[in-house]
């Protein structure tokens, strides 16, 4: 799996597709958003990729707790790292977009706060990892913290925004934006775009895992 080419090529092809349709595809004409609705393919997808990688992190944490194999911890660590990369990308792109549609780079929005919180949580995760010198103990404690953090984060970004008015579409607040959720045309681009960015993230993650495995073997020799 890690060495096969087909999904990497799929990722690249879908990325080209995303960029092509992202600039040239049909989009609904909506006030305020205008052309910026195309950011859906380049900003929201960052969060989706981050979310998938965070799920991977929690999943490999559970695997580690059951099997006590340090390889699982390695994967969990790298998942969190790449999730962080995508998270920062999502935050920066979101700030640019928000500045031009909502009037300020940071607005008090539950979705925004939730994602900022998840970045902080994963920053804390790395701090915890750095604080423990022993390999297996580090793996165990960070797996426990990672799983706990993941559940709290899901509550934050999935449940809380539904209970408050949000500027994001589909959550009270801005019904005018709601329309693009229904636009079938955009969906046909959005879903492939999510898959493209996620696969790219997984690719980056697997490369880092493989490099670190080589490092391990080097240290053993």
């Amino acid at each position, binding site marked *: 799996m890690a*060495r096969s080419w087909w999904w*990497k090529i799929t990722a*690249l092809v879908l*990325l*080209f597709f995303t*960029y*092509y349709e992202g*600039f*040239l595809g049909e989009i*609904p*004409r*909506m*006030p305020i958003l*205008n*052309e910026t609705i195309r950011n859906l393919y380049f900003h929201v997808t960052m969060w989706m990729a981050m979310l998938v990688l965070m799920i991977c992190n929690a999943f490999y944490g559970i695997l580690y707790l059951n099997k006590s194999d340090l390889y699982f911890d390695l994967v969990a660590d790298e998942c969190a790292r790449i999730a962080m990369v995508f998270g920062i990308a999502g935050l920066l792109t979101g700030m640019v977009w928000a500045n031009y549609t909502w009037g300020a780079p940071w607005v008090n929005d539950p979705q925004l706060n939730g994602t900022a919180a998840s970045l902080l949580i994963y920053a804390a995760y790395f701090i915890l990892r750095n604080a423990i010198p022993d390999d297996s103990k580090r793996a165990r404690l960070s797996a426990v913290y990672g799983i706990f953090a993941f559940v709290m984060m899901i509550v934050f970004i999935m449940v809380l925004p539904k209970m408050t*008015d949000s500027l994001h579409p589909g959550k*009270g*607040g801005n*019904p*005018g934006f*709601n*329309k693009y959720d229904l636009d079938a045309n955009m969906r046909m681009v959005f879903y492939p775009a999510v898959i493209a960015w996620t696969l*790219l993230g997984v*690719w*980056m993650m697997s*490369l880092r895992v*493989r*490099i670190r495995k*080589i490092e391990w*073997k*080097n240290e053993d020799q």
Partner: protein
Amino acid sequence: MKKNLTLLSIVMISHSTAFAQEVEMADTMRSEGKIYVVVAVAFISLAILSFYMIRIERKVTKLEKEMKK
């Protein structure tokens, strides 16, 4: 609050459908074909990214094979 929001939503939806054609979009850029310049630039940057990713992938695979020997 809730009531206001539903009212607002009705107003906004009817507004956006009635005046959909008047929303300002980058139509000139499209008709002039300049948008293809943007696409070309984006594609070049993507191509470089792809090339780089594939290079790293092959490098790592090579290293793995060397480690196995």
